[in-house]
């Protein structure tokens, strides 16, 4: 079975530009979350979507937005890119929302974004 897939794997953008990152969850998983991992740090929670609704948002500016589609895939959009947005953006999926036993969260390999 395919795991969490993300695209693109690497991209370079210029300050002020916009970027869209895409994620396909594991088949049957309805929850998708996005995390930002800056070099040398652990991932930071950005968004969670479940059944196409935003369930939570981390401490990120409004330049960051996301959505989930009927097939449970998701997009993360970042506007007005800053140098500090350079990071590995990770998508994670799980069967449902909540943290009860059995609802393991699985990560994709990430999209490396470099802002120059």
């Amino acid at each position, binding site marked *: 079975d395919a795991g969490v897939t993300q695209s693109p794997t690497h991209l370079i953008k210029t300050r002020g530009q916009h970027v869209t990152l895409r994620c396909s969850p594991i088949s049957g998983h309805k929850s998708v979350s996005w995390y930002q991992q800056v070099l040398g740090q*652990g991932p930071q929670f950005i968004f969670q979507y479940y059944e196409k609704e935003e369930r*939570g*948002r981390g401490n990120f500016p409004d330049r960051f937005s996301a959505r989930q589609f009927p097939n449970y895939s998701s997009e993360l959009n970042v506007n007005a890119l800053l140098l500090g947005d350079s990071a590995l953006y990770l998508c994670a999926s799980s069967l449902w929302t909540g943290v009860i036993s059995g609802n393991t969260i699985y990560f994709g390999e990430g999209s490396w974004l470099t802002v120059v």
Partner: protein
Amino acid sequence: TQLLEQSPQFLSIQEGENLTVYCNSSSVFSSLQWYRQEPGEGPVLLVTVVTGGEVKKLKRLTFQFGDARKDSSLHITAAQPGDTGLYLCAGALYQGAQKLVFGQGTRLTINP
């Protein structure tokens, strides 16, 4: 703000030695997950511990969840060069949203 402090941040030891990585928090987590991450890749799940005091073993790796579900440890016995990598602990919270709070990571190097 929920914080998960992971220590040590860097550890370099010789093959065959034992080591322990710690994650501590003042927050109570519903569960705690340990991941391993290779350079340029996403975190790969090693184990999930759910019950306070739970101990899980994965070959030479032993994971323990604290009784109060605020802390966890990862112990590696007889470390091998293949254990080299970044180890991340992540506490699971549910506050209307499913959220993982990650530690800073432990970069482990096992020297042959």
